[in-house]
């Protein structure tokens, strides 16, 4: 019988990470890139919580770090969206190909 333990969670988390990386690499819309970052952060968080469950010395720390990651991800999303809206006000697009004139 197959028992789904720590490696199963690690594999799932690796899959979410790969999806997020593909999002980052292929999407041209800045909001889509932000979604890729959210996928990657969730993959890392899933690893933390799985470690809290399966690694005996990590029971409290895994949860503490996951809480910190959730908070920082929310803050990052807020600032990124503010920057994108500002960019949209100036360029009427959020396509990152058109952001090449953002210099100095």
């Amino acid at each position, binding site marked *: 019988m197959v028992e789904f333990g720590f490696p199963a969670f690690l594999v799932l988390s690796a*899959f979410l990470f790969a*999806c997020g990386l593909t999002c*980052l690499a292929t999407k041209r819309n800045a909001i889509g890139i932000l979604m*890729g970052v*959210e996928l990657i952060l969730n993959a890392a968080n899933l690893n933390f919580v799985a470690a809290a469950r399966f690694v005996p010395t990590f029971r409290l720390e895994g949860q503490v770090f996951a809480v910190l990651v*959730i908070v920082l991800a929310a803050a990052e999303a807020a600032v990124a969206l503010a920057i994108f809206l500002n960019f949209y006000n100036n360029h009427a697009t959020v396509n990152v190909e058109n952001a090449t004139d953002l210099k100095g």
Partner: protein
Amino acid sequence: MTFHDALFLILATASAVSALGVVVSSSIIRSAIWLLFMLMGVSGLYFFLGAEFLGAAQLIVYVGGTMVLVVFGGMLTTRGPFDHVPVGLVGWVLGGGLSLALFALLVQASLSFVSHPRTDTALPGTGPLGLTLLGVPETPGQTAYLLPFEIVSIHLLVVLIAAAYLARAKRRPTSTHPEADHG
């Protein structure tokens, strides 16, 4: 197959399929809805692992807060329904190939882990978690996390001010892009 395994399979499949949906959807709003289901699946996995506080926090902060930001950001910055930027074949090959290679590497590393047996003792709940964040360790020798907690608090305040400053409505006196003004 036990009930635990079936539940894990359902939640993991839902999360993985939704994550794939985020990647392959060309419309930004559809990607956002797939992301919503992915976040709910991960939240279910937190509950499955016994971390109730984190599951609830994930639902409140991500599904309730960040998703509203992303959906409204998407709606404010698209010019019409089903507006999308097509991805070229080169982009799919390069990005997908890179991700597949990394996925294979991570799977190889993950499977080399020794699986700890699942202990059925409950994880530390909200009480010990809050006390740790406030600098009161559960047992005398344990690390407390008051300083990260305070840094995160200040960080959130700074982010709040910065987001309000960056996104405030303003009109530029002279415009070098005339077409940008009706945006």
